[in-house]
């Protein structure tokens, strides 16, 4: 079992792996409910938004503003989930919001994952001063206050989807780097690596063909767990005004918009918040399950 140096920084102790019997039991139970939730709340709306959404998420009718959801007094089925203060249909905005969440999270995870993995591999494999430099970068990245940096970057770069992706990636890459580095460290001391080197393989080849495949599992688990993190981070940034710009229907922006009306028009803030919660919860549960399947050593993270 690899020694997880620095594991405490992730909030994990050095603890023994669980009994194998438990792992086998878990493997049989596919997390159906979370997967279904994800499908219904995230994937289907994101992909089929144009077909499902009843109205345009950006155009509102001022006459219809602040309408309650259909099941409340004063609501009607024209606007199933009610309208916001511009008279825009909440349901349509939630649906298109799913698309934004999915887009941002996939891109951000890919970008941060790529950067983190490459740096982590390099750092773990080569060691020495390369390792030191990269780990210092990781430290710096971890000590900077996430949200502040986000706010500042938004002022510098202007608000927009690209900015959000950049901010989120900058904040998350270090998690991959740390973890992958640990794995790479353990792997590079293995026999077959030594043999490959003796046989004359270049470093790049070794990393790509021998080291990387062994960290893929970790990568997948981290990526899945991180999607939820990204969605939360994007929502937080949007809430603080530093994320997706108006009038785009990001769930975070919608909660921010509904804040002032929490008493009289609670649905504007509650519904998108609920969406975020369910999606991230489902994502976390799927991630947990994946981890149990692919890499039980990570179970304590």
């Amino acid at each position: 079992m690899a020694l997880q140096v620095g594991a405490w920084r992730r909030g994990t102790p050095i603890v023994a792996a669980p009994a194998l019997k438990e792992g086998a039991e878990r493997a049989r139970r596919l997390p159906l409910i979370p997967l279904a939730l994800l499908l219904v709340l995230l994937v289907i709306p994101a992909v089929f938004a144009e077909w499902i959404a009843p109205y345009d998420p950006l155009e509102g009718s001022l006459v219809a503003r602040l309408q309650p959801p259909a099941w409340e007094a004063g609501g009607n089925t024209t606007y199933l989930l009610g309208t916001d203060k511009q008279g825009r249909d909440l349901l349509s905005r939630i649906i298109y919001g799913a698309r934004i969440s999915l887009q941002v999270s996939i891109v951000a995870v890919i970008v941060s994952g790529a950067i983190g993995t490459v740096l982590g591999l390099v750092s773990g494999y080569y060691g020495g001063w390369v390792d030191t430099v990269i780990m210092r970068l990781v430290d710096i990245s971890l000590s900077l206050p996430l949200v502040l940096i986000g706010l500042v970057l938004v002022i510098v770069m202007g608000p927009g989807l690209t900015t959000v992706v950049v901010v989120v990636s900058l904040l998350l890459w270090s998690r991959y780097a740390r973890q992958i580095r640990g794995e790479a460290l353990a792997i590079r001391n293995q026999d077959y690596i030594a043999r490959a080197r003796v046989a004359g393989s270049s470093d790049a080849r070794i990393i790509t063909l021998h080291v990387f495949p062994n960290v893929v599992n970790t990568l997948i688990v981290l990526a899945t767990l991180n999607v939820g993190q990204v969605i939360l981070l994007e929502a937080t940034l949007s809430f603080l005004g530093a994320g997706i710009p108006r009038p785009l229907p990001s769930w975070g922006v919608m909660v921010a918009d509904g804040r002032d009306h929490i008493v009289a028009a609670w649905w504007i803030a509650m519904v998108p918040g609920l969406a975020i919660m369910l999606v991230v919860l489902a994502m976390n549960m799927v991630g947990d399950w994946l981890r149990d399947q692919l890499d039980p050593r990570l179970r304590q993270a």
Partner: protein
Amino acid sequence: MRYSGRVLNGVVVRVAILAALFAMACAPSAPAAKPTEAPSKPAAGAPAATAAPAKPAEAAKPAAAAPAAKTKVDRLVISIVTPGTEGNAPGRDLGAPDLIQLRPMYEKLIGVDPKTGGFVPQLAESWKLEPDGKSYRFMLRKGVQFHKGHGEMTAKDIAWSWQDITSEGSQASNSLYFKNVVERVEVVNDYEVVFHLKTSEAEFLTNVSEMVGGMEIQSKANFDKLGKPPTLQDEPIAGTGPYQFKERAQSQYIRFERVPYQHWRLQAEFPELELRWQNEASTRLAALLAGEVHMTPLPTDLLQQAQAQSHLKLLKGNAAGLRVFMPFLCCYHNDINDKSKGEKYPESPLMNVKVRRAFNQAVNRDELNKAFFAGKGELMYMNTLHPTLPGWNPDWEKRFQEAWGYNPEQAKKLLAEAGYGPSKPLKTQLIPLRLTDVPESPDVVEAIATYLRAVGVEVEMVNVDVGTHNTKRRNLGYENALDIRSTASHPLTGWRVYNTSRHGIRGSGVELFELDDLYRKVATTMDEKQSADLWRQMGEIAFEQYPQISLFWLPTEIVVNANVVSDYAFPGNISGSWTHLEAIKAAK
């Protein structure tokens, strides 16, 4: 057991840490931070006035909630939005809207009548324009005392206050105005002072009055004693107002106390006055309902909840209110003195007056008014001028619907005439600024974007923050954009800032040479009939040239707890903030 060696130590340490943390968490808030002290009982924040059956504060909390009878409070608490800057030197640190934090302790040369909005003598008993037409002689009131024993107010304090506001690096809104306009201040004797201006200036009296922030009269003796402008660690320089400074806690509140002697003007009815900063409107509402604060302005959407409570009253300013409009940021001269040098962005679609007219006719003002302002807005037929002000042409009201009013078909036709259509769509940018006085402003801009789209305009919403926006605007960086503004400024100031290129203030609106020339005339015209005439001419040009999307005059309103406050007479949103706070009457 595998942990046996370290367990005991671990447990003891763990419990100790937990205990320490718990103690820290339960400790009363550190005095250093000066949190909301004294009458801050935990807010029972239950705005029960919704469809839900009232879970009223009356049932849950004792004393804290809606008392049914008149209450006498020692400290009147007014809750407002946090000022952008906090400072103690009114002439150097604070721009106009932020001056509210020091206003109750200072007075000006000329006051404003809270009912009519006209000038009344304050620290100056009388004033007159000198024969040369460009100097003002002020005769000062005798026997006015500065706070905390700093002596009597005399002419040298006036002269010094002018020096203070025109000092290098001052952030006061009118600093540059006073520097550019006043040549020197002459102290004739202790109670007589003359301001010598560089040229005739019709705006001058307004700028030394309570209408505009700036030229608060401070004690020179106090400043000399301090030796430097006061920072937040010091106390502000002594003023002459009915309230004097007591204490402040940064980003939380500032407190004033009634002067201990007989004030020359009025005796404040509340022994203490507190201005409390609370940015969130719903927080202010909750605090008001819980009795923590007694007065606060609220956005329209929350007003209904407040008004449902019988003890809460909505008070309105007496004079004409706030103007809200969207200036076109596009049309700047290359040389403000030379027509032949051309325009900066000749290709901008907004250079075409037909396009500007089309934008105006695309907007359904009635719908906006009802949706965001509960119908309280008054249609603005002419930016800056109002039926109650001189220079008004009643014709404008008659012609408004045809020339400016909501008519999307007409708008589309105009755009087509200007050469735009489905094959060549018109693109423009809208900047949804959040205005302190009009919290609904971003929503208004978003709604207007919808109207523009409905007539075929492609709108890009530019979400920048205020700082970046101001930079770009000042540097004339916007070629084809609109933002949103609110102001209660005097007409002359309004023209100057938004429609001319004078005094180096540019980037706030469409620059028109004819308006510039007329402005130069009216600014130096002292005869009232002549100025009215000139204003009418300027109005006519503005009417024809569409320099902005006109929206509304909004009343200035504040919600008060009628059990504590019986009356508050105020002119409206002059100088960008609440005035006449010292004259608030207590409920008896």
